[in-house]
């Protein structure tokens, strides 16, 4: 029997190798470039402005900045499930940045995931999403980047742990998860929907955080936008799901959140605080409305969770904790204070199947984002020193099952594991 198994494995490996080699050697995935395209930039001010806006929408700033360097000079550690990747310098510096790259090189990197030297980019660079942008869009981005002051900042080459250190392994990933080609409008949908779809699926790359991933780190497309555990948070469901997603949010609520970081229900913190500050707060209201329209057009799931009865031990002790400790800000009815203290009663983040964000915020506190429209940036204090695992599980379960909400209970073990997982994090 083992002999048969061994033979099967060998066959599979050989086949895989053949496919990989064939892929790498024969299949030219580069889209033919129009030789008449001249170098982007120069005097096209409208184009540069469009490029600046697209750079903001694509949130290049979030990754391609580094500590103590000028904008887009790279060096930032980007956390991935496979290890840390250092974002490169994309200022026009000829030696340490991309100054020597042609526009074709740049387009290949952004929309095909291939570097100038031919090696493949890891999907920490969300090229699979950026591929949805058109050639013109990417040329505009390049035009804008060309206007930046060249910054000398040599970013060390990445070394992910083996086997991910083999960039060629990206060929398999690309085969599975990368579909080249710009976004195509759906004639049956409204202009707002289409613009929203373009922004969400393309430069906005929302799915990079909000869509569950396969083992190899590609999108589970059948569960698009249903939430994903990333960097010690749970990026929530952003479909129109009533319980866990944006079902209870109006288009205005979503626009307010993306524009100012706050609305009557929620406050952006953690990675979304950065997203709001650097990207969506600088986009137009129309575009944010389009994003909201598209997201609310993604159907929610239909599964139901029974509400925990109020007689349950977790509910009575959680309720006691809530009354004594939480109500001072979040109010006895769970409605908080609009734009200041989140309304737990209406929060889809609170009701997420994965309670990681909720537990994290209670354990360590959190600072919400400041924008010029909403500069207060209120902070949640840390309760990890005050509540033990049993108590924290009880109050979290209580919050998730009160005021008409229902969500799976949280156990003391869930809390213990989250505490342990967060212990090494400095963010």
């Amino acid at each position, binding site marked *: 029997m083992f002999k048969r198994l061994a033979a099967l494995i060998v066959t599979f490996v050989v086949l895989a190798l053949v496919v990989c080699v064939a892929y790498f050697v024969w299949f030219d995935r580069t889209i033919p470039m129009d030789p008449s395209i001249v170098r982007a930039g120069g005097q096209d001010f409208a184009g540069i402005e469009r490029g600046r806006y697209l750079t903001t929408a694509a949130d290049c700033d979030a990754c391609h900045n580094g500590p103590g360097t000028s904008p887009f000079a790279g060096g930032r550690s980007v956390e991935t499930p496979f290890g840390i990747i250092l974002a490169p310098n994309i200022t026009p510096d000829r030696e340490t940045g991309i100054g020597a790259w042609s526009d074709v090189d740049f387009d290949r990197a952004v929309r095909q995931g291939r570097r100038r030297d031919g090696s493949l980019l890891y999907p920490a660079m969300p090229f699979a999403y950026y591929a949805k942008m058109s050639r013109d869009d990417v040329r505009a981005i390049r035009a804008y980047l060309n206007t930046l002051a060249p910054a000398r900042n040599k970013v060390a080459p990445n070394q992910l742990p083996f086997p991910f250190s083999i960039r060629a392994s990206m060929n398999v990933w690309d085969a599975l998860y990368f579909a080249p080609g710009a976004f195509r409008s759906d004639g049956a949908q409204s202009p707002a929907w289409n613009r929203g779809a373009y922004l969400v699926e393309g430069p906005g790359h929302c799915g990079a955080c909000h869509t569950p991933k396969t083992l190899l780190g590609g999108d589970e497309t059948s569960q698009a936008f249903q939430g994903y555990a990333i960097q010690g948070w749970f990026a929530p469901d952003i479909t129109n799901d009533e319980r866990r997603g944006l079902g209870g949010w109006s288009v205005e609520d979503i626009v307010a959140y993306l524009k100012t970081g706050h609305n009557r229900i929620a406050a952006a913190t953690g990675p979304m605080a950065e997203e709001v500050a650097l990207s969506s707060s600088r986009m137009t209201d129309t575009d944010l409305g389009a994003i909201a329209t598209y997201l609310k057009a993604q159907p929610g799931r239909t599964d139901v969770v029974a509400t925990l009865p109020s007689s349950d031990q977790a509910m009575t002790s959680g309720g006691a904790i809530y009354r004594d400790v939480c109500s001072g800000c979040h109010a006895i009815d769970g409605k908080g204070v609009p734009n200041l203290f989140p309304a737990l009663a209406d929060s889809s983040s609170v009701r997420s199947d994965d309670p990681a964000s909720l537990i994290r915020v209670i354990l360590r506190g959190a600072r919400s984002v400041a924008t010029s429209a909403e*500069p207060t940036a*209120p902070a949640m*204090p840390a309760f990890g020193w005050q509540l033990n695992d049993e108590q924290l599980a009880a109050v979290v379960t209580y919050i998730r099952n009160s005021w008409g909400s229902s969500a799976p209970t949280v156990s003391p073990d869930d809390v213990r594991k989250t505490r342990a997982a967060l212990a090494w994090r400095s963010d």
Partner: protein
Amino acid sequence: MTRKLPHKDVVIIGLGWTGSIMANELTDEGLDVVAIERGPWRDAATDFPPNYDQDELRYRIRHELFLRPDHTTFTFRNKMSQTALPIRTWGAFMPPNGVGGGGVHWNAETWRFLPIDFVLKTHLTERYGAGFLPPDMTIQDYGVTYDDLEPHYDRFEYLCGTSGLAGNLNGQIQPGGNPFEGPRSRPYPNPPQAQPFSHTLFAKAARELGYKPFPQPSGNMSQAYKNPLGVRLGPCTYCGFCEWFGCGNNSKASPQTTILPVLVRKSNFLARDNCEVTRINIDRSGKRATGVTFVDTSGEEWEQPADLVILSAYTVFNVQLLLLSGIGKPYDPIANEGVIGRNFTHQTISDVTGFFDKAKFNFNPFIASGAIGMCIDEFNGDNFDHGPHGFVGGGYMGQVQTNGRPIETTPVPLGTPRWGAAWKAAVRDNYLSTVKPGTGVHGSFYSYRDVYLDLDPSYKDRLGRPLLRMTIDFHENELKQNAFLTDRFDEIIKAMGAKETLKEYRKGPYDITKYQTTHLCGGAIMGADPSTSAINRYLQSWDVSNLFVMGASGFPQNAGYNPTGTLAALAYWSADAIRSQYLKNPGPLVHV
């Protein structure tokens, strides 16, 4: 060796209320501003969150949010004939420290002075004659009027979301408000707070006695509020941990909850914390400040050059820094010359405790806020005829019971032993049914020739600098004022239905161990005459024209109200003058 930092347009000494107001105004003008604060940065979620803010021992008894005396303190004596001794632990007042200053741990009682308070000398002399005033009383006119300041009072109240009921709208007296207040141009930004039981009972009794009670103007939000800078505050939750404590849920007006979130986002603003300014540097002419010198926590000395210096370090630290920097002529009480240190004042506080039948009255004193209160103003300022009484001044009085924190709230009737079974039973039986305002009578403290500040000849602080010496005692005028007011207050408490009242008159000598608010005023007073004032009507130093001195140190005498509203209004008034006049043409704004 002192290291020199890059030049800034403005250096602000002390990042409390007035420091924050000035920083925001001057950064809006496009100036490059650095604020240097002796104490730590403070924020609700990390310094007084609502899960350990409720710690009476830590914050009220052990004074954690205040300055530590070993950092710097003062020496004190009643009379010039005594040797001043150091205040080794705080008592009569609680000096602030840290970003936000007193704005973090104040009650948020937000009053305006009366119009006559600003022209007190002129007014009292006109009405009663110069001979009616004690010969050594040194009260003066401010040099500004209530009308000058009205728009700036309004600005501060809207910044803070002050909760109140207007009593005088553009000259029209409004029912339910303070009928004695100066005219205001528009209503308060928020309605008054809800009042607990004992406060409404006081108001009822006061009305029955013919007075016009009104809700105390409160910087605790009666509802969620967004101020003109876009900063949001939450509704006060009546936690009873207000004064002496920071607010854990963004519902008390402070620099943190009204200004700092906007200020720190400006690229032309920098704050340094835990750095103490030791000197304001002036050039050889003595007429121009070149910046400040400060020390950080390693003892390293730095020089911060600047074109404009704002001194906003709190009353007594302002005066100490002026003296240590050699700015202005130090006051000599014997020669009656000089200005820095003259007209030092405090407040004249007393209380009446009312014991009620516990079977009929349950006051839940722990449900309260810092500025909750029903007050009457019939006995403030010159709101009544002082002729028959032989004193001047007065104050507001009211049931202003801000907490039921148990360590400090063990009222027992007169004659109860201080310990043992009888004491224990009396504490148990009276806690819920006693009215104990704390600062029930909040009287003025006018200025005198022999009440002043100077540098101590012997005691030093941790940096080897002379401590500021306080020579302060009550005068007959204030004690008479207080006896009269306390008796009136007692009448109202009795009319509430108290079965027994305990009057605690304020008696001399001034006692450094008995708390009487932190409303220290004077020492660098404003005025129209450089020989009797340190700063002009725009708070600009007469001696050093690029130095402006904020705060209650500018008050020539203290009125019968909490000072914060007025010193904030003066800061806005000064900022306005700097922006519209001084910056266009730096130099003295007032010529005599």
